[in-house]
């Protein structure tokens, strides 16, 4: 086994025993990048030199016996996290040349924990997409089938972990942007509770839905990364001062007697038969682990996509107003006046999907339409939240497919936004309700594409999700394949 193929906890054992060094691990990862990045294209910006320097520093710290939570572990960051002194594009031409003078809180925490940053990964422009095809910097390919998309919007991070181009990665999830690409790339991806991880320095798409989470090779690594990134941040008003448990304590504890809700609304037409079969198999696996499955109802499920595509674009239309060519980023040339500068800058700086959503959002907030769209959507969002509150009175976790299909072909849905939007049909509800969710690999299609199963729990129940996912991982015994690259 190559070092780049190992998990964080496996590498930490080796580092602790002195069997390897961060420099070796980092070199292994960059060797892998040199071999496969031309095919996968997971990264927008590679940070080879700083990574090697960070690895040296990590080795020094380890030799001194100062091993932090992530000392010497190469991780990748979605290019939506502001990184001090390193270009941060959000997948957009409009931020093509933007170099933040500050680190996102998550990035500061990773640095403090000793992590080595390999680079900034590709994403749908401003996280708007489910395939990483809307990036200004080109399409990322699914390591399991280079003709297919890796999911999105955090497709670069998911693909990088799957391809061994980093040991773990971070993404953001507004409607499924961590869980869906995790499922499509065969890795573990968690979206924590809204307010669990600080959004400071995360470039905003839809502020009331955005949340940061990890991509890892297994559930234990997920717990390790959650320990680093979770917690209150005085710079972030919506982060919650709720105590952070040691998530590793939840590993391997079993789920005997747990009640698992299977929402009937999530097993309907449109779901790929191979996906459904794999998820049904997952249900049997958790029953095998001693959990009791029961049908639950989330009656407002049908409204999730519609509510999401009002709330998210409305917030985005306002969040993206700052990209006006005045202060930083791209500005069009030869403008006669202010209005022309705005128009030309934003027309050329944003891609089609971003412009589509800005227009939808602007419309939804306009006077005369606000009540019918934004206000109504906010009200229905309250009902969706209540569905979950009620469901969690009778069950401990909810189990659903992560995505209705496995990875689709590049270009297959780019001309049909509505079909694209339906890729997130099972993940959007968790963002609307603010609850945590995790996607864990649960099998493969006949053609060898990974399939994911999603577990959801109540607010701040990340520990419970990790306990459940860890038990699933142990009992389902999903064959650990690696993409052939």
């Amino acid at each position, binding site marked *: 086994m190559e070092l780049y193929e190992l998990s964080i906890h496996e590498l930490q054992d080796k580092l602790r025993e002195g069997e390897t060094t961060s420099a070796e691990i980092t070199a292994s990862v960059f060797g892998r990048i040199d071999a496969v990045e031309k095919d996968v294209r997971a990264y927008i910006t590679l940070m080879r030199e700083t990574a090697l320097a960070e690895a040296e520093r990590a080795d020094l710290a380890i030799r001194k016996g100062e091993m932090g939570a992530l000392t010497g572990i190469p991780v990748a960051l979605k290019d*939506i*996290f*502001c990184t001090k002194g390193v270009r*941060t594009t*959000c997948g957009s031409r409009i*931020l093509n040349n*933007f170099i*933040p*003078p*500050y680190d*996102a809180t998550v990035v500061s925490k990773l640095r403090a924990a000793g992590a080595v940053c390999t680079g900034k990964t590709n994403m749908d422009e401003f996280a708007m997409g489910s395939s990483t095809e809307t990036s200004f910097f080109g399409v990322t390919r699914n390591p399991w089938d280079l003709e297919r998309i890796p999911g999105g919007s955090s497709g670069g991070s998911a693909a990088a972990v799957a391809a061994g181009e980093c040991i773990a990665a971070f993404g953001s999830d507004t409607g499924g942007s961590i869980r869906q690409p995790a499922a499509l790339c065969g890795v573990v991806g968690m979206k924590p509770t809204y307010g669990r991880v600080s*959004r*400071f*320095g*995360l*470039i*905003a798409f*839809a*502020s*009331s839905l955005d949340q940061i989470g990890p991509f890892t090779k297994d559930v234990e690594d997920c717990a390790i990364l959650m320990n680093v990134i979770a917690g209150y941040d*005085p*710079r*972030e*008003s*919506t982060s919650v001062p709720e105590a952070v448990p040691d998530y590793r304590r939840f590993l391997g504890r079993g789920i005997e007697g747990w009640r698992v809700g299977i929402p009937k609304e999530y097993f309907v037409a449109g779901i790929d038969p191979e996906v459904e079969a794999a998820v049904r198999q997952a249900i049997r696996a958790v029953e095998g682990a001693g959990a009791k499955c029961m049908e639950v109802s989330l009656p407002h499920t049908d409204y999730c996509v519609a509510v999401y595509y009002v709330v998210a674009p*409305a*917030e985005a*239309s*306002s969040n*993206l*107003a*700052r990209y*006006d060519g*005045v*202060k*930083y980023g791209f500005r069009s040339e030869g403008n006669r006046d*202010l209005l022309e500068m*705005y128009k030309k800058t934003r027309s050329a700086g944003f891609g089609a999907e971003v412009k589509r959503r800005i227009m939808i959002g*602007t419309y939804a*907030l*306009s*006077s005369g339409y*606000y009540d019918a769209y*934004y206000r109504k959507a906010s009200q229905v969002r309250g009902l969706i939240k209540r569905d979950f509150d009620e469901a969690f009175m009778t069950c401990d976790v909810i189990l659903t497919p992560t995505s209705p299909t496995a990875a689709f072909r590049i270009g297959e849905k780019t001309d049909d936004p509505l079909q694209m939007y339906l890729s997130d049909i099972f993940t959007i509800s968790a963002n609307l309700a603010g609850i945590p969710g995790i996607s864990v690999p649960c099998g493969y299609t006949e053609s060898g594409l990974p399939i994911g199963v999603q577990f959801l729990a109540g607010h701040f129940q990340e520990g419970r999700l990790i306990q459940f996912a860890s038990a699933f991982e142990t009992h389902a015994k999903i064959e650990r394949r690696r993409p052939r690259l």
Partner: protein
Amino acid sequence: MEYEPVIGLEVHAQLLTDAKIFCGCSTKFGAAPNTHTCPVCLGMPGVLPVLNKKVVEFMMKMALATNCRINRECNFARKNYFYPDLPKGYQISQYASPPAEHGWIEVELNGWKKRIGITRIHMEEDAGKLLHDEINPASYVDLNRTGVPLIEIVSEPDIRSAEEATAYLRRLHEILVYLEICDGNMEEGSFRCDANISLRPAGTEAFGTRTELKNMNSFRNVQRALEYEIKRQQYVLEGGGQVIQETRLWDDTAGVTHSMRSKEDAHDYRYFPDPDLVPVVIVAAWIDAVQKTLPELPLEKRERFVRAYQIPVYDAGVLTASRALADYYEEVVRLSGQPKIASNWVMGDVLRFLNEDKRDIRECPIAPASLAEMIRLIREGTISGKMAKEVSEEMYRTGKTPEAIIKEKGLVQITDEGALTKTIAEVIGKNSEQLAQYRGGKEKVFGFFVGQVMKATRGKANPQLINDLLKKMLAGDK
């Protein structure tokens, strides 16, 4: 037809907090462009606002001082529009749920008191400033002011004349400055006012079409602009025309208002709750704590001065024009025990000296203790009123105590009867002719003798004592 103006005012007051409303940057005016900025107030990607609690407290002070009801919960909203001085492309303001509502203040006009309603008070952030270079055509953006906290105070359409409008504004201004939450500087834009004005036939209820007036940066301009606009609308209506709903700019030089934008061009601000901020919850205990910090307000103080110090309403008005002046006066009263005399000196010499030098009472070199001491010395007869004038000038110039000045200048009044009797006898002896005239019934000559005695004592003798002794001695009692 007779028309009645209906006026409502929107006041924006910059708050005197040290830090901006959503970041830690300084709010100080006059720094080099873009030096009081950080990623948050520059609207950089991914940064987030955190509310400065002081801003809420300052808002609460104004709300309590203007009899508003403070709501238990309020939200921030985004007001969306594009302009280069607005780095985020939206202003964080408050819209559907304001923190304070249903207030009022009382204004006095020609001896009449009138209550003017306050619809709401809310918090928001200020925008930056654009600087235009006309010679080498270019525009520059200074974002120092971006994120400086403001409160917006919206009045009910209760105002019926330009004078009422200025009286209301002066009252608001006075309260803000008294509360020490706003410096009230209109030229620097710390206190700004927009007006909504319409006319309706006198005696009718329904409102006419209103215009919004902007760009009035002094009380006088508010009054002039409203007077102009009342005449303009009246002219339009009397000519059978219709007032157009629009925003008009006051042109100070030309003395007219110009149309700026019509209702059709009005922005759709697309307000919605700001998802980056959580609701502000104001519990009763917080309101009580802020209430305890409220100073006595100008109107209450004025009434108390009239009552407690027995001074005229006019004097009380002058002495309470600012909190510092009122404090100064009260300190002099406390130390001297002479409210009326203290008021004469403060309103007289002290304010005259300060006005001549355009100085504030807080920079006054005469300490209240010195003024009180001087008042005591006059009452005790140590110095005369005339000497006191000289002493007060010297106190203002040097900041020295009256005793030091009196000693230095040898100003002590002669109150020694024996010494004075001797001097008077000498004066009488030298002026036997006048003595004869006086004794002959020409009483006017008395003034001559007073003058001679003053001269002989170089003005240091107690005038009352001179009078008493002279009368006796001229009558030949001694």
